């Protein structure tokens, strides 16, 4: 059954969604266990695929038995296998986390919430594995539609935010579709490997159609990943969404679009075609604008959730900037940051949701003495904060290390300065929170006052929300220390793809 693993971890959430639809109508509480078991099964098969890819190189799974350009097929190399594992991990932890918030806020409709949740995971996993450009559009639409509904089930203002997201998201997806159309017009195929093969053999890269196709594809993907000028929809959408949806879509939706951008850059257009194009000059400056904008806005926010959304915008700036420095090292750095940033964003959302559920904390000023009230969650929160600032043992430091070395390697000093300023802004943000969290809000006159140590004061987050927080912050540290295998796998794949001999 192992050779069907790529399909298994796609179908497991899909079938689970259907089962929940059926079972949920009678007994609401069956939704949660089915979701968790399905996601753990798909995680297992995703890890199996990753190991198989690690050993035997890229796995090609032809859908419907048709060979390369005629049918749709999966081309799973190390990048897509890693993304698949990342998605299953994030989805599983969010599913475990979501029991309490979903039960309390939209309990009676949980039999609708979980199918949408699982269909989103199916769509996003499909995006990571497919090798067909048009199929990618359909999967983007699947995940987009589910995310509109997942957002709209939140607070009062989430409905209008979801509508704006729908308009901008569909615009972006349709621009992507148009870009694929331009590619098809010029090359005649839809399969990514085939596109690259034809574009290199006929040296089509310089023709205006392919250039405009690149512009359309990139603008479409930037809209979907909320890169700086097109990020308008993200802050509202993820601030008012229910916390499990924000925890699911925050790390996944934008990061998968970065993966798609990298996939198009190296597998379809080819790195050597992109290096000498004028893109590598002006796109990093756009990314720098995004980093500076995101960091400044995050500094000025009081609501925790809105602050995290602006941090996401800044992090997207890191990845796009690094990717478009267009050297193998910089794309490795960008991809590693995709993974580490997904984990960090998820951890932030989970901790904030835990604080919201137990102590109704929404803004920075509510976080008085939170370290005493919820010590374990705050330990997880501070690990993530240190990782975002870039303090050594965490994965944030390693990704910052590789991003800066990519900057130095490409000699792009403004990008490095922007990175350092952003990590300093993160430091200010999080230490402001630590100050209020550890030392309380109103400065105590003199320093003789008692503190309350009674039991009522100390109330930790519910068990099902605490475990994901701890697992994620532990994985951030572990990913930081044991990062070599991941870096190794990513860089060999990227160099083999762009190293000329295009792996079929």
């Amino acid at each position, binding site marked *: 059954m192992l050779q069907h693993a790529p399909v298994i971890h796609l179908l497991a959430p899909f079938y689970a969604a259907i089962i929940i639809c059926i079972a949920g109508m009678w007994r609401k509480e069956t939704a949660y266990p089915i979701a968790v078991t399905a996601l753990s099964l798909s995680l297992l098969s995703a890890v199996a695929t990753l190991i198989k890819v690690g050993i035997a190189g890229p796995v*090609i799974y*032809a859908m419907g*038995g048709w*060979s*390369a*350009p005629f049918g749709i097929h999966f081309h799973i190399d190390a990048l897509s296998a890693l993304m698949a594992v990342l998605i299953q991990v994030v989805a599983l932890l969010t599913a475990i986390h979501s029991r309490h918030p979903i039960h309390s*806020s939209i309990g009676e409709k949980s039999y609708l919430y979980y199918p949408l949740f699982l269909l989103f995971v199916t769509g996003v996993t499909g995006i990571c594995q497919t090798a067909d450009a*048009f199929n990618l559009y*359909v999967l983007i*639409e699947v995940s*987009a*539609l589910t995310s*509109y*509904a997942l957002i*709209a089930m939140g*607070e*009062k*203002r989430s*409905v*209008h935010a*979801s*509508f704006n997201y*729908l*308009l901008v998201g*569909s*615009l972006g997806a*349709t621009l992507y*579709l*148009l870009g694929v*159309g331009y590619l*098809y*017009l010029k090359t005649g195929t*839809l399969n990514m490997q*085939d596109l690259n*093969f034809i574009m290199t*053999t006929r040296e089509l890269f310089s023709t205006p159609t392919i250039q405009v196709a690149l512009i359309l594809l990139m603008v479409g993907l930037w809209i979907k990943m909320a890169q700086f000028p097109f990020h308008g929809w993200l802050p509202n959408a993820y601030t*008012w969404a229910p916390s499990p949806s924000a925890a699911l879509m925050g790390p996944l939706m934008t990061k998968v679009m970065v993966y798609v951008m990298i996939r198009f850059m190296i597998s379809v257009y080819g790195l050597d075609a992109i290096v000498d194009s004028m893109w590598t000059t002006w796109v990093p400056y756009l990314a720098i604008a995004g980093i500076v904008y995101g960091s400044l806005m995050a500094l000025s926010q009081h*609501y925790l959730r809105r602050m995290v959304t602006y941090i996401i915008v800044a992090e997207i700036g890191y990845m796009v900037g690094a990717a478009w420095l267009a050297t193998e090292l910089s794309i490795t750095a960008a991809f590693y940051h995709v993974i580490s940033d997904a984990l960090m964003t998820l951890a932030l959302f989970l901790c904030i949701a835990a604080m919201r559920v137990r102590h109704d904390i*929404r803004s920075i000023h509510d976080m008085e003495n939170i370290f005493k009230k919820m010590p374990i969650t705050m330990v997880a929160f501070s690990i993530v904060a240190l990782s975002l600032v870039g303090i050594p043992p965490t994965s944030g430091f390693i990704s910052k290390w590789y991003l800066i070395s990519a900057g130095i390697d490409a000699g792009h000093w403004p990008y490095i300065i922007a990175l350092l300023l952003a990590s300093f802004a993160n430091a200010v943000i999080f230490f402001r929170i630590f100050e209020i969290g550890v030392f309380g809000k109103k400065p105590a006159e003199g320093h003789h006052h008692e503190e309350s140590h009674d039991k009522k004061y100390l109330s930790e987050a519910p068990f099902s929300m605490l475990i994901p927080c701890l697992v994620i912050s532990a994985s951030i540290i572990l990913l930081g220390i044991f990062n070599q295998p991941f870096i190794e796998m990513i860089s060999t794949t990227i160099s083999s793809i762009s190293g000329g001999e*295009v792996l*079929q």
Partner: protein
Amino acid sequence: MDLQTLLVSKLNYWIFVILMIVGIWAIMSKNNLIKKIMGLAIFQAAVILFYVSLASKEHGTDIPIYPHDLIHPEHHGEVDHHVEEDSAKAHGAYEKHETAHHEEEHVKHSDDHDAHAEKDAHHDTHGDHQEAAHGVAHHDAHAPIADSINADDFNNPLPHVLMLTAIVVGVATLGVGLSLIQRVYRIYGSIEENEILEAIQNASDDGLTLQPEEEAAAQQE
């Protein structure tokens, strides 16, 4: 290339560009939410126009359906012929299937892609792929019609398939958008963007708590 030929030979693409501009302009600058959704629908229709117009060929090409006489060339007294033909076909097909499936399995996984990757002529790999499937020429009536078709007198079917999907996806997005508009109307009592933003601004609470649904109130009036 003087204007006349430029305009005439690519009229479709000009109209596609105009519709794109109309669509995007409507999405961004229209104040009414329903008008925005209609702008989105027009924008998607423009993309469909682009795809379908790149699929059609010179005048006189046929719709992508095989005409009846091409498929069943001989129709005289096919009743008895039919039975015998079926059994032959079944037998021939079964045996052909064995090799084809095996061939296909083998071809799919290993050499097909390497052949694909090599620079040599594309066509022959597909030739032998085809022969392999038909290598064991079954001798019944259903002779392969592949080589008897001239590919140029049929429209290209692929964009049509893609556009089928795009239209259905467009309608699905339209449905979700309209349901969101109804919820927005229930909450804010209007579907004009400026009025909604005002309602959000002076909403006393920061929109965080799920108030006892205003929808019920909006619904009553």
